[in-house]
């Protein structure tokens, strides 16, 4: 796994400490595949989180930093569901809704358009880790109809690059174009909604590849999620 920083590690750490001290802190829960067999575990987690945290909605992000802050004693919590697996929709989304949270789906949109018979191979080839198969012979991704349904219920979708691709300093322009522009179009076609949030595999942030940063802005992305930051681009 290649993780990159835009600055020396000590400088990044200093910046992050300053961000925490200033109260620019956002709490996340990161999930990937959420198999049914772990449903009791997710239920326990969300039962303890729900009384302590407020849902973080897209409106909260769009209004930050001018908009209202989270209640002082009940900070925002942002559950992120990575990859677009079917069990995110089937298993954990109802639990998140019962707990009162807004789900944030980070999906590589091309994965949802891969034919069912090829989805497991695609997942293996693109580092989409699917450890146990609870849908033998069936699709393992959520459908676009399910994605549209989740979006209609107030949940949020982000483009996790088109093919679950990591950014490097020398990623060529044609690859950047496909992952950014084609990915955005594919996601918006599937969802029927504009998408303005992007996240690379392995969470590269602004500054690692200025050509990618320029393309993200040109494509209309307003936010970049990275390993340690949520960056407003424009």
């Amino acid at each position, binding site marked *: 796994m290649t993780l990159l*920083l835009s600055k020396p590690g000590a400088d990044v*750490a200093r910046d992050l400490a300053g961000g*925490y001290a200033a109260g*620019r802190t*956002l*709490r996340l829960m990161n999930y990937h595949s959420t198999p049914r067999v772990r449903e009791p575990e997710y239920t326990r987690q969300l039962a303890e989180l729900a009384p302590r945290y407020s849902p973080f909605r897209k409106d909260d992000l769009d209004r930050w*930093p001018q908009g209202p802050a989270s209640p002082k004693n009940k900070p925002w919590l942002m559950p992120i569901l990575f990859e677009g697996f079917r069990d995110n929709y089937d298993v954990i989304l109802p639990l998140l809704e019962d707990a009162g949270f807004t789900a944030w789906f980070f999906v590589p949109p091309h994965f949802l358009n891969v034919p069912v018979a090829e989805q497991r191979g695609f997942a293996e080839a693109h580092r989409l880790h699917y450890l146990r198969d609870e849908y033998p012979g069936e699709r393992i991704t959520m459908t676009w109809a399910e994605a549209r349904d989740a979006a209609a219920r107030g949940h949020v979708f982000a483009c996790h690059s088109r093919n679950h691709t990591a950014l490097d300093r020398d990623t060529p322009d044609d690859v950047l174009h496909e992952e950014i522009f084609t990915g955005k179009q594919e996601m918006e076609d599937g969802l029927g909604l504009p998408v303005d949030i992007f996240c690379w595999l392995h969470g590269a942030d602004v500054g690692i590849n200025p050509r990618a940063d320029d393309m993200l802005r040109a494509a209309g992305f307003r936010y970049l999620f990275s390993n340690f930051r949520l960056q407003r681009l424009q």
Partner: protein
Amino acid sequence: MTTNAFLPDDLSAEMDRLGRRKYAEIGVPMYLVLEDLTGNPAEKGSHDGDTQLAVAFSEAISRVEAEKGDIEVADIARVIEVLADRTFLDRPFSELSDEESPET
């Protein structure tokens, strides 16, 4: 010996322990920093400021740096994981995850 209630005595061991979890299936708490790159001067946080978190994070980074000589991205990620694990709830969040993968 730890000097910060948010940090374990053996930080490296805890970073290693959390790093061995099955990330593909479990819920992992993390902290992010909101950053406005548009030049807006009025950055307002989620609340008044997480001073204790900032202090604990800086101390943990110093300890890792003293031990390893430098700080890499994976170190920062693991430090944040340790802090999030110990601060999201009144008990370590990882206690709510099954260490072993349940049988199907």
